[in-house]
């Protein structure tokens, strides 16, 4: 018996070697869906899916995504450090700008609202690890479903206008951003992000308002960085410090976390990580169905209006297609008029009338101006951090 097992094992090993050293096939599928919201709600939030209280990690349920603008109290939450200031003195709060500038600035909330041009942008905020639970073997990190994203209209001031007020010195090259959240230990590095000057355009703003209200504390009150089109890891919350330098500072959250293989497919195998990595930065094309959900029961021959959202990095969504036959045929969904701009969700809707009892799966696929479209979930390549999943969404409803 033992011998036979041994024989089997060595056969398996031999087989694996012939498969270019892959011992376990890396696969992707639909992310975990339908997790229940917590019984306990967090400040200024409805009850959401709760992975952790310290630091707070909250995910929106699928039903949130039938609206184009995500309500503030349903908006996902992701912090890296356990100590979040729970009180902000709005009179005393300042954003300090220093480093390679002609004049250090100390900008109050009042200054921000009165002394600068006020601008708004509607933009999607999505965690790079959103949908991570789609990856097998399990990728490292919180096993998010697909609700680590949201879309809001942000109001604030252009970062460029603030930097211009300070006056950048000739050799200025990197801008570092730090928020007010703290680690439990003094020695722990801060969650600092650095952006190269070339990455900053007029769409990058320091926002103090979200969907016409103050930012919720857990989304970065009183101000956060908004970088439309990019994943949320650089959208620093409770932004209090901007430092201009001429040299890139080595930072854990920039150099180790939030990175993907730097190759064409952005992929690798579990056994052999690709040695060269790059930051996740720009978001890829994605759609998600808000209604119906996997728990929905509908009557045969009734009209269902499928609703959801689609987005990319601002290139521009040009269509969303719906399939109810496992992707064999596709029909165009109706897109909203796009008046919220290219960084916003485009809402889509599609009327579907089931004509047979039993389970039916509805799929959505977004396409953008560059001709990029979502792959089937199983065709999304694997990466060890479980970043950038954008597989075609699928919900299965019960027709009775």
């Amino acid at each position, binding site marked *: 018996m033992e011998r036979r097992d041994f024989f089997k094992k060595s056969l398996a090993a031999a087989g694996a070697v012939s498969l270019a050293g892959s011992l376990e096939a890396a696969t992707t599928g639909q992310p975990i869906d339908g997790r229940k919201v917590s019984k306990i709600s967090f400040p200024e939030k409805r009850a959401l899916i709760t*992975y*952790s209280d*310290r630091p707070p990690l909250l995910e929106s349920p699928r039903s949130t995504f039938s609206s184009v603008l995500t309500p503030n109290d349903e908006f996902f939450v992701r912090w890296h450090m*356990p100590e979040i200031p729970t009180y902000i003195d709005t009179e005393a709060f300042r954003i300090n700008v220093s480093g390679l500038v002609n004049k250090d600035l100390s900008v109050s909330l009042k200054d921000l609202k009165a002394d600068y041009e006020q601008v708004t942008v509607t933009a999607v905020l999505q965690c790079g690890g959103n949908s991570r639970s789609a990856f097998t073997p399990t990728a490292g990190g919180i096993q998010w479903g697909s609700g680590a994203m949201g879309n809001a209209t942000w109001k604030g001031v252009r970062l460029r206008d603030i930097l211009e007020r300070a006056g950048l010195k000739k050799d200025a090259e990197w801008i570092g951003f730090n928020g007010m959240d703290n*680690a439990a230990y003094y020695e722990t590095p801060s969650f600092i992000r650095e952006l190269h000057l070339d990455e900053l355009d007029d769409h990058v703003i320091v926002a103090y308002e979200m969907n016409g209200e103050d930012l919720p504390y857990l989304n970065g009150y009183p101000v956060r960085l908004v970088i439309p089109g990019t994943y949320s890891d650089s959208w620093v919350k409770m932004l209090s410090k901007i430092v201009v330098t001429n040299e890139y500072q080595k930072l854990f959250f920039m150099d180790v976390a939030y990175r993907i293989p730097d190759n064409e497919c952005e992929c690798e195998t579990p056994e052999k990580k690709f040695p060269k990595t790059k930051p996740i930065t720009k978001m890829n094309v994605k759609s998600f169905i808000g209604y119906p959900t996997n728990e929905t029961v509908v009557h045969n021959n009734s009209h269902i209006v499928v609703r959801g959202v689609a987005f990319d990095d601002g290139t521009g969504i040009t269509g969303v297609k719906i399939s109810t036959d496992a992707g064999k045929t596709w029909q165009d969904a109706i897109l909203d008029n796009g008046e919220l701009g290219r960084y916003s969700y485009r809402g889509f809707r599609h009327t579907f009338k089931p004509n047979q009892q039993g389970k039916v799966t509805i799929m959505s696929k977004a396409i953008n101006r560059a001709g990029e479209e979502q792959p089937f979930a199983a065709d999304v390549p694997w990466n060890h951090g479980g970043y950038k999943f954008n597989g075609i969404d699928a919900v299965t409803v019960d027709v009775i």
Partner: protein
Amino acid sequence: MKKILLLSILAVSALFAQVKEPIEVPYISYEIKMGEGFGAVQANCLTCHSFGYITNQGKQSRAFWKGKVVKMVDHFKAPITDEDSEIVTNYLSEHYGNGK
């Protein structure tokens, strides 16, 4: 006139937080498996993050958990002794491992 007055009140109040006193982040008790080494997990991990942060990483290999403990020490400067690092790694791969 009334409308203008109302508008200006709104404009002023926008300078103040919706929440005027400290918020309180609720404490959630996450289920975690009991077993050998749990004491070290409680003493070393809970200072910085919840048990939810651990259990919601999914089932992972011993190498993964070891890497996480090393990351906490090297990058996050958590003062975990070598002995405790070993105990915590053993506990995690025993209870939240994938058999590898």
